[in-house]
């Protein structure tokens, strides 16, 4: 049932089941279909609004593709089961929302430390705590980055529409596989429940990547080594007779635990950081609109990037030199490009559905003489074009 080695059969099934064309569907469904096209054949989850339709779609579609849907007893068990399944070779995914994401944090750290590829979709909802359980928000920007303990890198992507969610989910799987790391998809309750036209492509248009496997016994004996110098160790899967030892404790290249030697911890954690830092081309992605001559730069992400684009277009009609910068991979932040754009702009507006999270990241890369202002809204209702346009006019 592992897509590896059985790809022609999987492609045949995908073609037979999902004819290319335009469909009218929810953002959540688009995430699920993206996962199926990316080769996800194991889903373990626990229902939570506003993410539940992802689980429901996976429960309905996975068996058709020979894949497995597991409804676990809680979110902690869900991500635990994903890690177990990933070590047997599956591409795995779960979806949750704020409170569930909080519960998954410890094992997200485990996946970082054990370098286990997985995709975790957080359909952000209003908080803190139960908050407005059914409403969208963008308040988990830093939970994705710093929710688990210790020094760790994380990769998080954030789609801006239902169509984008389909492709960004596929991209999340490809990043996870290439870098042998968990990837967070920061989606949101608004797009999750918005129905719109979504184009399903032919499978040939979808790039599918797989994790690196050991080429020989020697590589298999070093599940946490770096034989190729890119910081990404080949992953010896369970059940192949390698006697692999996997632990969340500090371990040597062989996988055996050593929590006493400072150098071992230093070497391991720095390599895990390095493999993310050095492979920026694998995950870095952003979108730009009218940034060439923009005096007023709007920075936005996820759901808010859409009204932000509307506001920038309207501002241009009014003769205001406004531009838009949308990080699609939000962690690690596209620092270099942000720094370049920050040098040119007179004012930067950061629009998001929270009381100011990405703005903290943006602030690190802009000069003091730039007017930096947050355009924020909470309460479960997204920002409108008018609200953002008003702020652009205000600094024009």
């Amino acid at each position, binding site marked *: 049932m592992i897509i590896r080695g059985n790809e022609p059969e999987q492609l045949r099934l995908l073609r037979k089941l999902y004819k290319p064309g335009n469909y009218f569907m929810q953002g959540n469904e688009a995430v699920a279909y993206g996962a199926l096209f990316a080769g996800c054949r*194991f889903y373990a989850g626990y229902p939570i609004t506003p993410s539940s339709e992802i689980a429901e779609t996976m429960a309905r579609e996975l068996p058709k593709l020979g894949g497995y849907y597991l409804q676990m007893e809680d979110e902690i068990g869900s991500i635990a089961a994903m890690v177990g399944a990933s070590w047997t070779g599956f591409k795995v995914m779960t979806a949750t929302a704020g409170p569930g994401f909080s519960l998954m944090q410890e094992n997200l750290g485990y996946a970082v430390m054990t370098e286990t590829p997985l995709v975790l979709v957080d359909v952000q909802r209003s908080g803190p705590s139960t908050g407005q359980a059914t409403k969208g928000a963008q308040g988990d920007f830093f939970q994705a980055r710093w929710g688990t303990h210790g020094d760790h890198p994380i990769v998080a992507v954030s789609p801006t529409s239902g169509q984008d969610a389909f492709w960004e989910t596929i991209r999340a799987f490809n990043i996870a596989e290439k870098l042998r790391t968990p990837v967070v998809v920061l989606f949101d309750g608004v797009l999750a429940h918005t129905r719109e036209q979504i184009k399903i492509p032919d499978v040939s248009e979808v790039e599918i990547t797989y994790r690196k496997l050991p080429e020989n016994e020697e590589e298999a004996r070093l599940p946490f080594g770096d034989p190729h110098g890119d910081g990404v160790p080949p992953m010896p899967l369970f059940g192949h007779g390698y006697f692999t030892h996997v632990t969340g404790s500090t371990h040597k290249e062989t996988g055996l635990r050593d929590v006493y030697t400072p150098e071992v911890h230093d070497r391991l954690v720095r390599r895990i950081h390095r493999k993310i830092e050095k492979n920026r081309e694998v995950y870095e992605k952003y979108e730009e609109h009218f940034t060439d001559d923009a005096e007023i730069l709007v920075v936005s992400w996820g759901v808010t990037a859409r009204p932000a684009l509307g506001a920038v277009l309207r501002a241009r009609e009014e003769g205001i030199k406004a531009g838009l910068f949308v990080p699609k991979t939000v962690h690690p932040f596209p620092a270099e490009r942000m720094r370049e754009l920050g040098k040119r702009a007179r004012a930067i507006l950061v629009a998001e559905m929270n009381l100011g999270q990405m703005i903290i990241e943006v602030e690190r890369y802009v000069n003091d003489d730039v007017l930096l202002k947050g355009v924020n809204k909470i309460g479960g209702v997204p920002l409108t074009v008018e609200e953002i346009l008003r702020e652009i006019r205000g600094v024009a």
Partner: protein
Amino acid sequence: MAKKIYSTYPMVKYLRKEALPTALCPGCGGGTVLNAFANAIDGLKIDPKDLVVVSGIGCSAWIASPYFLADTLHTTHGRAIAFATGVKVGLPDKKVVVISGDGDLASIGGNHLLHAARRNIDITVILVNNFIYGMTGGQVAPTTPFGAKTTTSPYRNIEHPLKISETVAAAGASYVARWTTAHVYQLIESIKKALQVKGFSLVEVISQCPVQFGRRNKMKEPAEMLRWFLKNSVPISRARNMSPEELEGKFVIGEFVNRERPEFTTELNKLIDEVQEHFGLKEE
């Protein structure tokens, strides 16, 4: 001396030699459990390549991971069974075994234990019950006997211990047995049966922790604890005719259930077949 023991111990072939000697305290029951597990694997002629061992956090989690030479997954506290669930779905033809302690599996991990039993997924759980949190310094556990002393119940434990085997049997496991480290041969036979059962199986092993539990409860020698187990063990057949008062402080040993129920991964694969058949997706 130590070298000689390793070179003559026939079960050493199942151990990860570079991880030895073990971190377990002198007199710990963990060695007996590892020995019994290795003997069961040997007795059934299971190739360790067909075995994945998963454990959580704590002294007993160390018994098989890293020491047992198989694919081993040493997980976060309490979650071993949930991790093992993912492994089993991915490798339904392999033996997936969880070895961990009472604090790990029945306290923080209690939810996963119950639901794995309910689901009846084909995982064998060897739960080492030493009545105490050993690794963190001897704190009270959900299995600490009523009245016993620990570092966080220094006057006496006023909580009632969880009856793990009874609970897991009620939750729907296919096979449940309880033995003590003083019943080594019965323990080996039970582990063998558990490994052969198609479904969720639990072998609870009452085990001695002379350092953290015994020392504070007038049994600082390992042998004293083993004598305590022997003296207070009651076979399940006899326990059925005893009153709750008579059973207070006793260890009911033996097989609690041994039954056939539909197994989770089998049902899951059957369901996939049916769905693919229904939608005409099978390759012609």
